[in-house]
């Protein structure tokens, strides 16, 4: 049932995308506020986006962008503290995000696709912040990272935080976990070998393998909907650009090429489009890229 709904949603999403004029490799701008933005992620089978916007100097607000109407509305209009780093499960059944609960105290909230809270992982006492929550398919598991003893490790747990298990145990920082669509693998960034590179491991943390190797940082990996590719941000050309590679680390290609920043890639469920936050003429907006129209 869910599978057929998801397929239906993808078709609808593709129809919507077909209405958006795309010119050569130029991306389509989806927002027009100019404010700082972060982490756009598809939801509603590609019909909407969540993203984070600095709506006033004190607040990261979780926003929803309806792609058909281009209207932006707050996900939680009554929120008075920052909410950020949203993540939707590959089957779009639930999402998670970070919520500021007090001074330097950030927890994780998990909701179903109607916005009903499914679980909450509260921060530890004192200065504490979870990072980069990511949902496994089927409401089965959530992965996230946080600081431990001067390092940052990735953990997985049930949606309420129970049964927490470490997935990494290395020097440095392990960050931005992202499940493969089938939930069997996790790609992530790690500085264990000196600076941030992209890695992949099984969902239980076994068999970690490095996929990139460059002295400039490679960060924020995301599996494509069919699991065959990974999009990520790299600074290897002097500023933040989006790159694609096969899930085994081969076939590296640069998607964006602009003197300003391109960051925070997320895949449309059709696997042919990506959204990013890109800075153009000093303004930060969400952009849509058609991979097929890019000459690699």
């Amino acid at each position: 049932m869910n599978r057929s709904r998801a397929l239906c949603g993808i078709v609808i999403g593709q129809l919507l995308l077909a209405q958006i004029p795309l010119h050569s490799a130029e991306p389509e701008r989806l927002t027009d506020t100019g404010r700082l933005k972060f982490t756009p992620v598809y939801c509603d089978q590609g019909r909407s986006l969540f993203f984070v916007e600095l709506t006033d100097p004190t607040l990261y607000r979780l926003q929803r962008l309806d792609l058909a109407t281009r209207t932006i509305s707050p996900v939680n209009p009554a929120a008075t503290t920052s909410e950020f780093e949203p993540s939707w499960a590959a089957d779009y059944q639930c999402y998670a995000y970070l919520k500021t609960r007090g001074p330097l105290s950030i927890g994780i909230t998990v909701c179903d696709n109607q916005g009903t809270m499914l679980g909450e992982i509260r921060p530890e006492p004192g200065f504490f912040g979870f990072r980069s929550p990511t949902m496994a398919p089927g409401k089965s598991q959530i992965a996230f990272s946080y600081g431990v003893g001067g390092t940052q490790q990735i953990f997985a747990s049930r949606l309420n935080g129970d049964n927490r298990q470490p997935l990494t145990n290395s020097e440095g920082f392990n960050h931005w976990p992202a499940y493969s669509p089938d939930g069997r693998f996790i790609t992530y960034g790690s500085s264990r070998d000196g600076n941030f590179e992209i890695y992949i491991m099984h969902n239980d943390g076994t068999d970690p393998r490095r996929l990139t190797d460059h002295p400039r940082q490679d960060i924020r990996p995301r599996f494509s909907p069919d699991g065959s590719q990974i999009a990520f941000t790299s600074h290897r050309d002097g500023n933040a650009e989006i790159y694609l590679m096969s899930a085994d680390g081969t076939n590296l290609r640069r998607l964006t090429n602009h003197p300003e920043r391109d960051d925070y890639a997320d895949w449309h469920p059709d696997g042919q489009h990506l959204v990013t936050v890109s800075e153009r003429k000093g303004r930060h907006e969400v952009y849509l890229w058609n991979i097929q129209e890019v000459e690699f």
Partner: protein
Amino acid sequence: MIDVGSFRTATCRGIGRRHFLKLAASASAGLGLPLLPTTAVGAAPIRAKSVLFVFLWGAPSHLDTCDPKPDAPLEFRGPFGVIPTRTPGVHFTELIPGIASRSDRFSLVRTNTTSAPGHPDAGTVALTGFAETPSPPQPNFGSIVAKRRGSQGALPPFFSIANGVVMDGARRIEGYGGGTLSQAYDPFMMGCSEAGVVNLPALHLLDDLNPLRIQNRRQLSGILDLANRQIERAQKLSWSRSMQSAYDLLLNPAARQAFDLTRENDETRARYGYTTFGQSSLLARRLLEAGVPYVQLNYSRHVEALNPGFEFGWDTHIYNFELLQDQHCPVLDRAFSALLDDLYDRGLIRETLVVMMGEFGRTPKISARAARDHWPACYFSIWAGGGVEPGRVIGSSDKRGEYPLGESFSPLAVGTTIAHLAGIDTQTRAEMNVLTNGHVIEGLL
């Protein structure tokens, strides 16, 4: 566009009353204030007619920006790569490529040190050179310059750009203003949004009056009388004076022009970036161009990062690496690069001293929460223009960035160097009873 409180207007007649009153209260450093005598024979030359103090409030990590330690153990050096600068042998982290590529336009001090480990006191020390007690504190460097130089035209001599007085939590930083020189030398407070809308955040009073009805000074007088009845008796004198000054300021086309960022073309505004700090940096350049002797440009009003209700400062006890990577460094890199270029292109840099720094550094050893805490023993400052020889690196820290090797420089030395370059010599400082026992950072000259 000028947003004086809840109103937006491009003409002085349209200024909202509430904003008008805000402006009045924030104009205490304004016009017609007593000045010291102008430069006497034999006094220090004025190499910096204007000073821009860029305050990275909350304190950025020196290891993650301008003093990386790529050979230190991983628990010190952090996850970022390093890139070469224009200065031979000097590297910054990859987070600030624009600033790195302009290192021939400024000099870098890598051995700043301060006595105060906490924000409130360290903030005062950073802005005055001295601890916050006894009260009143010593004056802000800007207040010293303001008293010495006075207004250069229609504008007050000391601006502080932020959405209010800089704060640590709910606590005001005592060294924000005139201190022992009196409130008359407090800064004129201005804020600026990411869209470039200027606002005057100093006060929120008398919402029941409509400023659009203010037609003349007599009417203004009535409003001032009402305002006077609503504020404490002790503040009445300065209030009335401030109101009068603000009225004069708002009616002065040159002053209003300096606040109006819409007079810049989009290319220029874009170079700075449409962020609060980016457009505030552009506002600062316009104020300097208009002849304001001292501008304090605050990265944020609050020190905190990710505290409910507070602006995002550099105090990264958690998320140090994320906030620097995702927000603070890209915003700073773009805006400060544009600011330097603009000052050079317009020829302003020769007579404008630019100083950028926080109130301390951050722990070289990464904390248990995978971030960095306060570190007063060693941090950096950037100096450009106004008599500073560019392309130098003054001092060096040890292999882990924990302590200075050799000579270090206190905030008192920072303030003394600023005053020296602004033409306030030893004798004048003594006459003003400010910056006592301070020494100039000779390596910058």
